[in-house]
C-alpha cells in the first residue's frame, strides 16, 4: 500500500552535504559508552566484535595445539596426562570448528555483505545482535567448563557410546552438546539474516549476475547452514535426552543404534567443511581482482562451482564412515561423490589461475596468502581424493595422515584466505593500512611453519601413528618426525605472533587508509574507511559487476529516503527493482536480555529437563519486549 509521506518527515534531497551526514548520523548512531555497546544493532560494530572474539578463540585453540606439540615432541612425555590430553584435543577441535572457523567466516560476512550489496544494515539487525551474544555465551560455557576441569573429552564429534550415559559420567559430554546448541543457534540466525539481506536488500540494479562472488559464496553457505545444522541439533538434543532422561536413541540394547549418531553427525559434519571453505573461496574470487588488475576470469563458472559444491556437500557424509562396516554399494556411491567434488574445486582453481595469468599481478600480502592457499589447498585436495578411496581410507583411517589432510584443507583452504582477507579489508574495518613488511614476514613464517609442521604427519600416518594418543613408546619409529613437527610449529606460532603484532600495531599507528586503497571494484570501497553508521549517505545504483571500475567519474546513487527514520531500500529478488523504503530497527537492549534468558535456560537444562519449561518463560517475556512496537518513526509502517 502506498502511504503518503507525513508532513514532518525529512528527505535526503531536501538537505545538502554535511547537514545530510549530520541528520543520518543522528538517526543511525550508536551512542558512546556501555549502554550503546550493549544495545547496538550496527552490523559493523557487531561484525568487528564477532571477528575479534573468533580470533581470541583462535589464539586459545592455538595454545592447546602448542601444548599437544610439546607433549608429542618426545616419547613417554609427562607434561600432559591422558585425561587432560583427551580434553585438550577435544577442546582444540570443537573450539576451532564451532567457535572459530564457522563464526569467523560469518563474522566477516556480517561486516562486509551489507556494504558489498549497498545497504545500510543487515536484515534483522536485532537478531544479529542476539546471535553474537549467544555465540559469546556458548564459547564462554565451553572454556569456563574446561578451566574447571569439566571440558569435554570425547572428541569434537562426540561419538556414542563413548559420549553416552554409560561411558561418559559427569557433565563433560553435556557441555559439548549444549555448546553445539549455542553455536548452531547463532550460526542459523546469521544464515537467515544473510539470505534475506542478499535476497531483498541489494542496491537497485544489482541483478543476480552483478552480485560479488563473495556475496554469492555467503548465500550458498547460508543455505548449507540452514540445511545442515538442524542435523547436529537433532543429534546433540537426542544425546542430551539419552543422558538426562533415559531415552534410548543410541542404546543398541533397547532398539537404538550407535551408527545413527555418526549418520546424523556427518550429515552435518561434511557440509560443515564447505560452510568453512566456500566463504574462503568467495574471498579469494573477490580479492584476486584488484591484485590481478582485471576482473576474475569465469564469473559464471565461479558461481556455478559454489552452487555445485553446496549441493554435492550433502552427498559425501558416509565417507567419514568407511570403516564402520556399511554396505559395499553405499561405499562406492560415496567414493564417486567424494571424488566428484574435486571438479567444482578444480574449476575455481583454474579460473583463479587464469585471472592471474592474464592479469598484471601485484604481489602484496593478500595475494601472497592467496597463492599460499592454492598450493596448500591443492595438496589437501589431492590427499582428499586419496582418502575417498575405501581401501586407502581403511589403511590410514584414524591416523595422522587424516590429521595432515584436514589441516591442509582447513588451514590451507580457509585460514590462509582469511588471513589474506584480514590484510585486504583491514583498512575498511579500521581506517588504517596493515604493515606490508610485517605482512610478508608473517606470510613466509606461516606458510613455511605450516607445511613443515603438517607435511611430516602424512608420513607419520602412513607409518601407523594413530590420532588422539597422548604419548607413544620410544621403540616406535615416530620420534624424529614428531620432533621435527614440534620444532616447526614454533615457526608457525612465530608467524601468527607477527600477524597479531601487525594487527595491533597497525590499528594504532598504521598509515591512514583512503576510501579505496587497493583500487577495488566492489561497493564497500565506495564509502569512507571505516564507513559511517549509515554506510552510504545515498544508496548506490548498480549497472555492472564492477561498479567502481566501470564508472570512475561518479557513483550513481538514488535519492528520496527519509533521514529521520532508519530507512533502507528493499528490492526485488531477481532484478533488484526498488519495492519499498523499509524501516530498519533501532538499537535495543532486548536482544541481550533474550540471549541471557536463553543461555540460562540452555545451561540449566543440562541439569534438569524442567529448565525447558520454566526457562522458556523469561525468554518469551524478553521476546515480547523485543518485538512490541515502541512508537518510533520506524513503527510508522
Amino acid at each position, binding site marked *: *500500500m*502506498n*502511504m503518503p509521506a507525513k508532513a514532518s518527515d525529512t528527505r535526503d*534531497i531536501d538537505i545538502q552535504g554535511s547537514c545530510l551526514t549530520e541528520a543520518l548520523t543522528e538517526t543511525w548512531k550508536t551512542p558512546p559508552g556501555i549502554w550503546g555497546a550493549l544495545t547496538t544493532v550496527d552490523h559493523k560494530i557487531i561484525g568487528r566484535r564477532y571477528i575479534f572474539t573468533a580470533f581470541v578463540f583462535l589464539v586459545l585453540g592455538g595454545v592447546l595445539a602448542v601444548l599437544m606439540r610439546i607433549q608429542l615432541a618426545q616419547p613417554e612425555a609427562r607434561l600432559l596426562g591422558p585425561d587432560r590430553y583427551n580434553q585438550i584435543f577435544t577442546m582444540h577441535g570443537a573450539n576451532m570448528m564451532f567457535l572459530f572457523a564457522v563464526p569467523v567466516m560469518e563474522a566477516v560476512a556480517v561486516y562486509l555483505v551489507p556494504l558489498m550489496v549497498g545497504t545500510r544494515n543487515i*536484515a*534483522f539487525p536485532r537478531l544479529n545482535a542476539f546471535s553474537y551474544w549467544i555465540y559469546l555465551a556458548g564459547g564462554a560455557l565451553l572454556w569456563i567448563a574446561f578451566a574447571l576441569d569439566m571440558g569435554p573429552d570425547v572428541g569434537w564429534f562426540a561419538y556414542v557410546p563413548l559420549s553416552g550415559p554409560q561411558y561418559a559420567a559427569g557433565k563433560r559430554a553435556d557441555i559439548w552438546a549444549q555448546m553445539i546448541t549455542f553455536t548452531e543457534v547463532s550460526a*542459523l540466525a546469521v*544464515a*537467515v539474516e544473510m*539470505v*534475506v539481506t542478499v535476497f531483498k536488500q541489494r542496491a*537497485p540494479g544489482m541483478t543476480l549476475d552483478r552480485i560479488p562472488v563473495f556475496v554469492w559464496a555467503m548465500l550458498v553457505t547460508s543455505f548449507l547452514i*540452514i540445511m545442515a*545444522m*538442524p*542435523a547436529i541439533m*537433532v543429534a546433540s538434543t*537426542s544425546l542430551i*535426552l*539419552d543422558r538426562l*532422561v*533415559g*531415552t*534410548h*536413541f543410541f542404546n543398541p540394547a*533397547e*532398539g*537404538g*543404534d550407535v551408527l*545413527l549418531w555418526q549418520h*546424523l553427525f556427518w550429515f552435518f559434519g561434511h557440509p560443515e567443511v564447505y560452510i568453512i571453505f566456500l566463504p574462503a573461496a568467495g574471498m579469494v574470487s573477490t580479492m584476486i581482482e584488484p591484485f590481478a588488475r582485471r576482473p576474475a576470469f569465469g564469473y559464471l563458472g565461479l558461481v556455478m562451482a559454489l552452487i555445485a559444491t553446496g549441493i554435492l556437500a550433502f552427498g559425501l557424509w558416509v565417507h567419514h564412515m568407511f570403516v564402520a562396516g556399511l554396505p559395499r554399494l553405499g561405499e562406492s556411491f560415496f567414493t564417486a561423490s567424494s571424488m566428484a567434488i574435486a571438479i567444482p574445486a578444480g574449476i575455481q582453481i583454474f579460473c583463479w589461475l587464469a585471472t592471474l595469468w592474464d592479469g598484471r599481478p601485484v604481489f602484496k600480502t593478500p595475494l601472497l596468502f592467496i597463492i599460499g592457499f592454492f598450493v596448500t589447498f591443492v595438496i589437501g585436495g589431492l590427499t582428499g581424493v586419496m582418502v575417498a578411496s575405501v581401501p586407502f581410507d581403511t589403511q590410514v583411517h584414524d591416523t595422522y595422515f587424516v590429521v595432515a589432510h584436514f589441516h591442509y584443507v582447513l588451514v590451507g583452504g580457509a585460514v590462509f584466505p582469511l588471513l589474506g582477507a584480514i590484510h585486504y579489508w583491514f583498512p575498511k574495518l579500521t581506517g588504517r593500512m596493515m604493515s606490508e613488511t610485517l605482512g610478508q614476514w608473517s606470510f613466509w613464517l606461516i606458510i613455511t611453519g605450516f607445511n613443515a609442521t603438517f607435511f611430516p604427519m602424512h608420513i607419520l600416518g602412513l607409518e601407523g601413528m594413530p590420532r588422539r594418543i597422548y604419548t607413544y613408546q620410544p621403540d616406535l619409529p615416530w620420534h624424529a618426525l614428531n620432533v621435527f613437527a614440534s620444532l616447526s610449529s614454533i615457526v608457525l606460532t612465530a608467524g601468527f605472533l607477527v600477524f597479531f603484532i601487525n594487527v595491533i600495531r597497525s590499528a594504532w599507528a598504521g598509515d591512514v587508509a583512503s576510501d579505496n586503497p587497493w583500487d577495488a571494484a566492489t561497493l564497500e570501497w*565506495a564509502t569512507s574507511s571505516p564507513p559511517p553508521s549509515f554506510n552510504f549517505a*545515498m*544508496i548506490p*545504483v548498480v549497472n555492472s559487476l564492477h561498479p*567502481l571500475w566501470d564508472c570512475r*567519474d*561518479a*557513483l*550513481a*546513487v*538514488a*535519492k*528520496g529516503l527519509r533521514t529521520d527514520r532508519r530507512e533502507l*531500500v*528493499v528490492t526485488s529478488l531477481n532484478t533488484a527493482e*526498488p*519495492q*519499498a*523504503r*523499509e*524501516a530498519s530497527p533501532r538499537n535495543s537492549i532486548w536482544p541481550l536480555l533474550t540471549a541471557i534468558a536463553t543461555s540460562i535456560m540452555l545451561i540449566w537444562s543440562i541439569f534438569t529437563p524442567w529448565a525447558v519449561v520454566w526457562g522458556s518463560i523469561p525468554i*518469551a517475556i524478553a521476546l*515480547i519486549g523485543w*518485538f*512490541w*512496537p515502541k512508537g518510533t518513526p520506524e*513503527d*510508522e*509502517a
Partner: protein
Amino acid sequence: MRERIVLDLRKLPLHGMGTQSATWWGTLAFMLIEGTGFALAIAVYLYLMSLATTWPIDAPPPDLLPGTLVTLILLVSLVPNILISRWAEQQDLRKVRIGLVVMSILGIAPLIVRVFEFPALRISWDTNAYGSVVWLLLGLHTTHIITDLADTLVLAALMFTRHAQNARRFGDVQDNAMYWNFVVAAWLPIYGCIYWLARL
C-alpha cells in the same frame, strides 16, 4: 567519491507486503530450518524402524483417537487461517481481530487434546528406542504449536492496541498465518509416521 543521482525513491511505500517484505522471507527461512529438523526426526524414526525386527518394539500401536482428533482440529483451523490472511491483505482490522481470537482458540484446542495424546502413545520415552522417537516427534510438534500459539496471542493483543492500524502489523498477521499453515502441514507426515506406520 562524487555522486550522481539517477533514481528517485520518494514514491515508494514505507512497507512492502507479502514477498516484498523481508519478514516474509525470514519466516520462510525459519520454516526451512524447522522443516529440515522435522524431516531429520522422521528419518531417525524410519532408520530405527528399519533396524528393528518388530515395530513398534514391545508395545501396541498408539490409540488413534486423540491424534486423529488433533489432526481434524488442525485441518479445520486452516479455513479461518486462510481467511485471516486475506483479511490482513485487505487491511480489514475488525475482521482480523475476530480472526485472531478464533485462531487463538484453535491454537489452544489441539494442545488440550494433545495432553491425552501422550498417554495414548502407550509407551514411555525411556522404555526403548521406539518410545524415545515417538515422544521426540510428538514433543517437537507440541513445541511447534506452543511457539505459534504464543505468537498468535501476542499478535492478537497487539492488534487490539493503537499500534494495529499499520501495514507492517497486517504483514505480521499474514506471516503468522503462513507459519500456522506450516505447523499443520508439518503435522501430517508426523501423524502418518506415529499412527499409521506403526500399524503396517
